[in-house]
């Protein structure tokens, strides 16, 4: 009598490949959450030019559409006015745009001259493609002197304020974690009372920042509108950079520290230009002295 051999199930190649890929991707995740990021710099550098290229093309088409729209308006006015007045108005429009752009750039330049540290001006050219991450992309990278963990500031209404931190630096572009990211932690202090705390983001630019672990003794000294600045502790963010102003004070009876809400000094929805601070290199003003 024949003995039946137990039928062994054979898995297809897809199952073995899936197991291999599963292990590899899991290993990558394990390594990356322990700051294994050398790999990523190479990858980001590889694609940094492509994203910059797409941004350039997009800007070109937007500019072209604006130019075409303006030509149509000017042609209509030319029919109504004399030839001389039409030429004059055309020149006036062009110079007005140039003046406006000049004013915006001068404003940024004036701010730039006032920065103590060596700094790299950059433009925001993109956002993180994943909705769960708030990082934005700037068009400067290691080629321009940007490195990981450099502070990023911006200028609004005459005030220098903290925007975030460089988390990845590719060759031509870099990723910046904004202040309102949930993984952003900034050592801060109140400008007037000098109490310290940790500023955290809530994941959205519309939501207020939180400053936690503020000593409860500060309850009587801190009020709405107080200025919060970086403390310089931790070595990443230089001291004295504006973060925001207190918008809400909340002290719970059972807790030994307070959590307060801050209104950020920057409007991140309108942010276009930023400055990356290089605090390790001697600044121009220090060198001149």
């Amino acid at each position: 009598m024949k003995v039946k051999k137990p039928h062994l199930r054979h898995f297809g190649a897809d199952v073995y490949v899936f197991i291999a890929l599963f292990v590899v991707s899991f290993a990558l995740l394990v390594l990356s959450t322990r700051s294994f990021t050398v790999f990523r710099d190479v990858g980001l550098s590889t694609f940094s030019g492509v994203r910059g290229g797409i941004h350039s093309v997009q800007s070109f088409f937007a500019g072209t559409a604006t130019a075409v729209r303006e030509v149509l308006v000017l042609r209509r006015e030319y029919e109504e006015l004399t030839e001389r007045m039409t030429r004059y108005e055309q020149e006036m429009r062009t110079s007005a745009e140039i003046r406006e752009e000049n004013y915006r750039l001068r404003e940024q330049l004036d701010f730039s001259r006032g920065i103590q540290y060596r700094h790299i001006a950059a433009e925001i050219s993109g956002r993180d493609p994943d909705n769960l991450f708030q990082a934005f992309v700037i068009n400067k990278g290691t080629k321009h002197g940007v490195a990981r963990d450099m502070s990023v500031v911006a200028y609004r209404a005459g005030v220098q304020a903290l925007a975030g931190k460089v988390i990845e630096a590719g060759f031509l572009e870099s990723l910046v974690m904004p202040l309102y990211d949930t993984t952003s932690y900034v050592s801060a202090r109140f400008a007037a009372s000098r109490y310290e705390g940790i500023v955290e983001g809530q994941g959205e630019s519309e939501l207020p920042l939180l400053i936690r672990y503020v000593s409860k003794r500060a309850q009587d000294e801190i009020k709405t509108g107080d200025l919060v600045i970086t403390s310089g502790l931790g070595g990443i963010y230089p001291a004295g950079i504006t973060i925001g102003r207190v918008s809400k004070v909340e002290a719970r009876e059972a807790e030994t520290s307070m959590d307060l809400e801050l209104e950020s000094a920057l409007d991140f929805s309108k942010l276009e230009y930023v400055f990356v601070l290089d605090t390790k290199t001697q600044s121009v003003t220090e060198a001149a002295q």
Partner: protein
Amino acid sequence: MIRTIIAGAFLSVLMALLESSVLRYAAIFHVVPDLALCVVVYVAYQNGSLAGEITGFVSGLLLDFLSAAPLGLHTFTFTCIGAAVGVFRGKFVLGRVFFPVLFATGAVLAKAVLLLALRLLFGDTIPVYHFFARELWVEVAYTALCAPFLFVPLRAVNKMLHPRDKGF
């Protein structure tokens, strides 16, 4: 199959770059559709689990380079989703609207569940969707809405790569 994987990974990264640059102007409540994931879903459904998981691995890895995500996050999620969707290959006709919407919806929800599982293992370094928050459901709806339109050019690419294959 190699051509399919390369094309799929390339298109997935292209979609990610578009999400990063152009689509941010079309964001709804700061949410953009996950078109990169849709490409992986399409490749997996048309070509099976093997092609789907390899395409998911490669495109996920490339997406990790472009994003602030921990290296391996999208690699892991896209690989798993590519492998899972590939199981359904040939089970039914893809159609123009219903199944693209269904697969896109399922893929985004599967991504959310996988992230939750990873959060249990890795802690706060892994961000998760809050299942009652607006952002997840806006992403589900927006991705599902875009999927039928994205699958049209993907079918054309698939026909170019496999002219004899009638597809689903």
